[in-house]
């Protein structure tokens, strides 16, 4: 755990904890209405004592919106990445561990899917399914799956060729136990690290989708949606973009730092 005791580790873990805490606690502490309560007399007002982050075009308090928006962004990103791992894991492991024809077919498909930019894929899927919270998760999740499947397959392949796997096979370990005991634990760190980084990408993708109107739906607050709504008021009220933009940036920054540090920490060779 020493890896976390660096500046990078502390900041990264700190940000991730903070964002998680906000996502979990804000909806409990802050009444739901605070994010949508409008004040027509204070539209697009700059940061002040009464609205510390300012207000948006409908006079809604950006502080509350950004706090409550954390839940949406985290929920979507987290579920989407989880979904892509849940789908990508069996595909990747089967492909990497068994190899052969299955591997050829699956990876040809994955490679082809990788030719479609993830955002385009997410956008198209979102257009197919129609925009709402669940569909946004599905769209991002599916769009990320080929990428994760590829990575997991690479890891599984690497691990499957390790002598300890061969040793275990020589010791009479069945395929199922092999995957459970040897493959999974050894690819997990890579998946966790990749998942963390994918989480960052998923937050950006959610923001991008919402920015294009195919993600979170108003009046729910999500960071991407807030940035989208701020477009028309950029030059008069730049804080409407800066506040959610900074929230996205700081979270992604934290996740990336956290991912970098996790990479070191999860290696048993450097763990102690």
């Amino acid at each position, binding site marked *: 755990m020493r890896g976390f005791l660096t500046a990078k580790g502390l900041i990264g873990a700190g940000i991730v904890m903070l964002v998680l805490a906000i996502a979990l606690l804000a909806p409990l502490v802050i009444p739901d209405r605070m994010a949508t309560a409008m004040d027509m007399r204070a539209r697009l007002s700059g940061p002040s004592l009464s609205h510390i982050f300012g207000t948006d075009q409908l006079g809604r308090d950006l502080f509350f919106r950004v706090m409550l928006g954390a839940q949406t962004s985290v929920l979507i990103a987290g579920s989407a990445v989880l979904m892509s791992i849940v789908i990508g894991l069996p595909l990747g492991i089967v492909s990497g561990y068994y190899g052969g024809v299955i591997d050829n077919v699956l990876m040809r498909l994955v490679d082809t899917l990788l030719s479609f930019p993830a955002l385009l894929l997410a956008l*198209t899927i979102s257009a197919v399914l129609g925009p709402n919270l669940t569909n946004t998760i599905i769209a991002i999740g599916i769009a990320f799956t080929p990428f994760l499947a590829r990575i997991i397959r690479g890891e599984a392949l690497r691990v499957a060729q390790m002598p300890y796997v061969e040793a275990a096979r020589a010791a009479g370990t069945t395929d199922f136990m092999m995957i459970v005991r040897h493959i999974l634990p050894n690819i997990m760190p890579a998946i966790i690290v990749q998942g963390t980084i994918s989480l960052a990408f998923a937050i950006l993708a959610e923001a991008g989708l919402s920015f294009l109107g195919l993600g979170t739906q108003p009046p729910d607050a999500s960071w991407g949606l807030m940035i989208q709504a701020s477009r028309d008021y950029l030059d008069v009220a730049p804080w409407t973009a800066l506040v959610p933009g900074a929230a996205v940036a700081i979270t992604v920054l934290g996740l990336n730092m956290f991912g970098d540090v996790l990479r070191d920490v999860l290696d048993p060779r450097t763990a102690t």
Partner: protein
Amino acid sequence: MAYLINRLMSVVLTLFLISIITFAVTNILPGDVAMMIMGTQSNPEALAGLRESLGLNDPLIMQYGRWIGGILTGDWGTSLVFKEPIGPLIAQKVTASALIVVMSMTIALVCAIPLGVWAAVHRDRWQDSTASTVALIGVSLPDFFWGIMLILLFARGLGWLPSSGFVHPVDDFQLAIRHAFLPSLALGLGLMAHLTRMTRATMTGILGQEFIRVARAKGLSEGTVVWRYGLANAIGPVMTVAGLQVGYLFGSIIVVESLFNYTGMGWLTYQALLNRDIPLIQGSVFVIAAVVMLANLAVDLLYTLIDPRIRLA
């Protein structure tokens, strides 16, 4: 040569798969061509008739055959929204997007490689952490956020560059570059950050290799060792990653082009999706995927020029 033929065959196979996926996905889009053609004039009988005449009631395999046949013979159909043949329309927009993709890639590479090498050379020192922090922040900021900042700063604040629009390079090259500059920068900054990290990682690995020690043991200067011996080896992997990022760029242009009102492929695809212009969606999604794949092919082929190990393979 065999390598080239293999690659080309693989490209054809992948293009075929891309076309199938594109066709399949667009066919499950709600709403169909007939509905879009009729618009506010729609009524069930007319829709049924139009569907029949458009062949929408044929089995999917036949529809696919017709579509792919059209693609191969250059008849890409007509956009429902723009009422223009899709082929020339996409050709025009691809040029526009190619300009910003190439520019952003250039910006990214020109900045990322020196920065990444610099960080790798000064590994675990302040230079490294500075470069890494800059890169980390760059990676963390969404491109549309960069775009917004750039518009505020360069167009609105300083008034140096136009905030929007597209000018064809053939019409006015300088103006075209000026229009493309901010979108390219918005795309390029995130990419640069990513490539900086990549270059740093690759160079760190290379600088730890034995041939670098051999070069040093020859008495070569550090500059030669790093920038010639080291970089010559890093270029290949960095270019490969850069090539893979073409896919990411073609995703990002959807957002960035829409923000800058830069009418390229991203804009076109977004318009097509918004309007359920299915023939246009099929065309543009297919083209984007094909371009992304071909960009990767180009990088692979470029790699064979850079790295003699692959040349003979």
